[in-house]
């Protein structure tokens, strides 16, 4: 950190007020802009009304998932299996809406534990070949590659309609598969609760307090997270499967490959992103978000408010994703490369608006090392 805020702030206050206040006071025409933007208020809203409820909802979903898996383990019918799949989907969607908020309690370890992908199927299969029951405490000790939402997805969807068979009472190893499924849900629940609790007990309080301009201030951290995330959707969720990098298609590298839910999940990601801009919470609350800050700074993009341009581009991304139809993205990269490229390009434009225009308007130090400038 370059600044020792307190002493330096006082020095600056003394100097600046001495130098500038006489002129400021003599200007008796009240200026409405003198009321500065309430950064703390924006952060308060984003923390308490947007992000914390999103993490809480995800934590609740993991509770329901554990309940559902328990029910399925007691009654191994195809109907219960379908309900388990549906519950997984709701849990995953819920996660996708808070996946953007990767800071604070949502550490990189938490992200890996919750959702390592693409699935390392060989590693996952090894777990089942183990002698002895797979318990929650056993799985908690294992690496991120054999737990999380994607492993659950593999265990629930791999093989299509035949996915149920591994749990059928007559199948050898079905006990092991069932215990693995339950342990997966339980370990996921623990991780989700940890993040939620981290927000609830402390981070929701400290987040709005970091309202300065330093690298670790909340506005900076949040802006960097949302920029990195748009970049991540563009490159990893769309670019890699579409063969943007090496010229070869990699359909199997889409997220949610087994459930085919990658396109809806991108939509949920966009929802999580959008809430940071609009300040609208998952429970229907409203309040200031990044758009309010951009509007306060009168940030423009080719004549129109930058906030309008960003929301319009976000909607364009949604439209481009919808245009790919209801089939899985792994099919779309093969059958509709033009449409996938359109989505990729739309995400790129969203990235430019966030990383270039927004950063420039907000004066966010998009800094990766706290290097000196000028």
């Amino acid at each position, binding site marked *: 950190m370059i600044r020792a805020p307190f002493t330096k702030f006082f020095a600056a206050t003394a100097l600046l*007020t001495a130098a500038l206040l006489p002129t400021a006071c003599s200007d008796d025409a009240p200026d409405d*802009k*003198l009321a*500065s933007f309430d950064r703390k208020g924006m952060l308060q809203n984003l923390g308490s009304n947007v992000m914390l409820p999103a993490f809480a909802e995800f934590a609740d979903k993991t509770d329901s998932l554990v309940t559902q898996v328990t029910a399925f383990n007691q009654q191994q019918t195809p109907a219960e299996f379908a309900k388990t799949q549906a519950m997984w989907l709701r849990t995953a969607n819920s996660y996708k809406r808070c996946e953007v908020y990767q800071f604070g309690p949502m550490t990189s370890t938490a992200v890996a534990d919750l959702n390592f992908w693409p699935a390392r199927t060989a590693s996952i299969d090894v777990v089942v070949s183990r002698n002895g029951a797979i318990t929650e405490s056993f799985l908690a000790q294992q690496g991120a590659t054999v737990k999380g939402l994607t492993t659950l997805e593999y265990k629930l969807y791999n093989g299509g309609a035949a996915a149920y068979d591994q749990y059928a009472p007559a199948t050898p190893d079905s006990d092991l598969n069932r215990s693995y499924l339950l342990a997966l849900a339980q370990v996921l629940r623990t991780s989700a609760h940890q993040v939620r609790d981290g927000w609830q007990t402390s981070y929701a309080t400290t987040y709005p307090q970091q309202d300065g301009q330093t690298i670790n201030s909340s506005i900076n951290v949040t802006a960097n997270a949302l920029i990195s995330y748009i970049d991540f959707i563009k490159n990893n969720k769309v670019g890699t499967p579409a063969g943007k990098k090496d010229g070869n298609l990699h359909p199997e590298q889409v997220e949610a490959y087994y459930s085919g839910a990658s396109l809806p999940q991108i939509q949920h990601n966009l929802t999580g992103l959008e809430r940071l801009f609009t300040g609208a919470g998952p429970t229907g609350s409203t309040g200031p978000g990044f758009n309010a800050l951009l509007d306060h700074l009168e940030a423009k993009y080719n004549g129109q408010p930058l906030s309008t341009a960003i929301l319009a581009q976000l909607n364009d991304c949604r439209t481009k994703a919808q245009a790919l139809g209801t089939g899985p993205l792994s099919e779309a990269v093969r059958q509709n490369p033009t449409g996938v490229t359109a989505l990729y390009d739309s995400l790129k434009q969203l990235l430019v608006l966030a990383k*270039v225009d927004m950063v420039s308007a907000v004066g966010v130090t998009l800094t990766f090392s706290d290097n000196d*400038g*000028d």
Partner: protein
Amino acid sequence: MTTTATRPADARDSLAFARITLGLLLLLSLVRFVARGWVREFYITPRYFFTYYGFEWVRPLPGWAMYAVFGGLLLAAVLVALGAWYRVSIAALFIGFTYVELIDKTNYLNHYYFISLLLLLLCWLPLNAAWSVDAARQPGRAGRFGPSPELALKLLRLQVGLVYFFAGIAKLKASWLLDAQPLRLWLAAHGGWPIIGPLMEQTWVAYAGSWFGMLFDLTVPFWLLWRRSRPWAYAVVVVFHMLTWLLFYIGMFPWIMMVAALVFFEPATHRRWLEKGRRLLPFNPTGPLRGGPSSSEEGSQPTTYVRRTHPSPEGEGPGVGLRVFFFLFFALQFLFPFRYLLYPGNPLWTEQGYRFSWNVMLIEKSGFVEYTVRETGTGREFTALPGDYLSKQQVRMLSTQPDMILQFAHFLAAEYRRRGVRQPQVFAECYVALNGRSSRLLIDPRVDLAQQRESWGAKPWILSAPK
């Protein structure tokens, strides 16, 4: 031999003061640089380095050797401050520091350039004539090279003064004076500060700051030269640099300038400070260390005194070679900042002629760049993301600077050729926002950068700036 405490203060005291303070400040800067892990981050970890045009042969050394270079620099800075083996240590400091700066233009900072220039100049100035280990070891011989101490002091002041002056010239631009940019953006970013926050968002504050900054830079060398205004001018220097330090991420720059500006004070003042500093030492340096050689026949005029007791080897003043060097050294510095006039377009946008021109704090730029590599013949296309090859800091610098974008395009061409892509064409899609304006394309995305060569010439593939 009389003790030097009795000799009147002269330019040698000023030179010694400059040597000690700058040596210590450089030491501090280097320690800070190493302590922050920047040696590894900037010179060991990256796999690719953006060399300077004409200095492509400058390569980083293996990791341990880079640390050895910094170790050597630390030692050299200590020796310079002490005035021990001055000519060797200052030359080592100049060569080592400049070598490190030449490795990667990602890390270019105006004040690094200033330090390199200053160190080069100091190689030829007798800063060890007094208050030095050299003077203690070889009384009467130390510091007897180059120009007289009086001339040396003038050259030193010229070097410091022209940084301010040209920084002021560089501010004579429409965006700085008429739009108060980028100061408006930067001050507004501090709108959250208590009490003065709202003030920071006031447009007139940004205008006042811009105009004051311009006038300050242009005139402060002259206020510092004039004895009567000097203390006030220096107070303004301190306030000005403290403000910039508080508001911006500019590292050591304010401190370096605050210390460098002390060179404008009188030798008697420097002498007083040196005496004060000496009293803080746990030991008592002897006469020669403090004052260097002295003469009982010294006159009251420092100039005549020096002339008589400091016959330089070449006779009166610096030799012809050195005079030519000083002339070229400063002439180049006076001309180089204006080279942007030879290029079309807004230098803040194209950055042609931007570096080494004291363009300090003139732009707020954000950018984004992604490359497309296309195989000639087959038309196969690949998206190349700079982040896959470069550090985040390098990507940040790359994304707004055309010459780096070109350099990296050449790297990509070689990289894809190595991967078996025949005659790769490289296209850059680069969006930049300058001083709060809307983002727009910086580079013509239809131009195959693999076919473009770096030169002093204008780069026609840079698209025009936003109005």
